[in-house]
């Protein structure tokens, strides 16, 4: 009996640790950073060195630097990429992300904004220099619904959540939720490694 309890405790604590690993959280209204920003510490780097590290990261990853949004201690870049394709997530899901990196001696504080699109007909999305999105031949696409509208579950198969009769959001696609978390966490992991 004690052995079973011990194993169960181990499993629970492993899951807690795993859950804490994520820098982001996904809920029925969207994806967000729990404390609004992620603070990364680089005690051996000066402000100038961190700036160099950020610009190298942007160039290496082909992100788009946004000078109009950037300032003395802030660098902003935009990314536009697939979170997931139809074969895996039942629709093509594409994110437009703006990452705001505020930095100083020894630290970077990361916050972000995003707009996520989905298409069940394989629309090829385009983005211009003004960060506006359209589709090739105006193929249908829309803003991604994290929660399928009530009674429309079957036509929003890519939604992570659905609403039950009591209008409470219910998780129905945990694998898509994990894909979202992996996708967003990768930005932070890549930046730390860069």
């Amino acid at each position, binding site marked *: 009996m004690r052995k079973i309890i011990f194993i169960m405790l181990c499993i629970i604590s492993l899951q807690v640790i795993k859950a804490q690993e994520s820098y982001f959280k996904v809920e029925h209204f969207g994806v967000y950073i729990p404390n609004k920003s992620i603070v990364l510490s680089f005690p051996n780097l000066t402000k100038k060195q961190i700036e160099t590290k950020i610009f190298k990261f942007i160039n290496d990853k082909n992100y788009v630097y946004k000078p109009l949004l950037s300032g003395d201690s802030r660098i902003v870049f935009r990314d536009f990429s697939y979170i997931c394709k139809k074969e895996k997530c039942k629709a093509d899901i594409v994110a437009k992300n703006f990452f705001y990196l505020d930095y100083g001696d020894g630290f970077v504080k990361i916050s972000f904004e995003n707009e996520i699109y989905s298409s069940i007909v394989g629309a090829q999305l385009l983005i211009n220099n003004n960060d506006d999105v*359209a589709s090739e031949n105006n193929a249908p696409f829309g803003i991604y619904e994290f929660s399928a509208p009530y009674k429309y579950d079957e036509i929003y198969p890519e939604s992570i959540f659905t609403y039950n009769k009591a209008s409470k959001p219910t998780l129905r696609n945990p694998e898509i939720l994990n894909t979202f978390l992996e996708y967003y966490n990768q930005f932070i992991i890549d930046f730390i490694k860069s």
Partner: protein
Amino acid sequence: MKTKTVILIFIFSSLFFLVNAQSLANSSSKLDARLNKEKIFAESQRKIFNITSWAGANISELINKWGNCTKKSETPNGYTIYSYETRYSGSGGNYKPGYVVTDQFGNVLHQEASKDNTYSYDFTDFYDFYVDKNNVIIKVNIGTR
């Protein structure tokens, strides 16, 4: 007895097909609704996209095509805003005053309240092009003010 059973089976199977067909039709119309909504979204995004795709071009190319801007201003961080504005204003409708009809003793025989259907509007559609020191358009804002 056998005939009755056959009829019952037939009725139940028909009902099943009807319910199934109804469900498929509902699903199909819901899907059509989603696709229709997303088609409208795609088309409205395209309109914005086509105009804002001037970002990245030289401002002289825009001026050659659109003519001179209606307003030019500077931002504190050194960008120039070239604005193309179109003002729409006007008024219409009519005002019907109310009236009261009385007899010689002051009794009200008929009365009508005034009716005011007048309206006026005044707004400006704008396209703001933010231009950097190299004369490159780096941001386009569209809206109404």
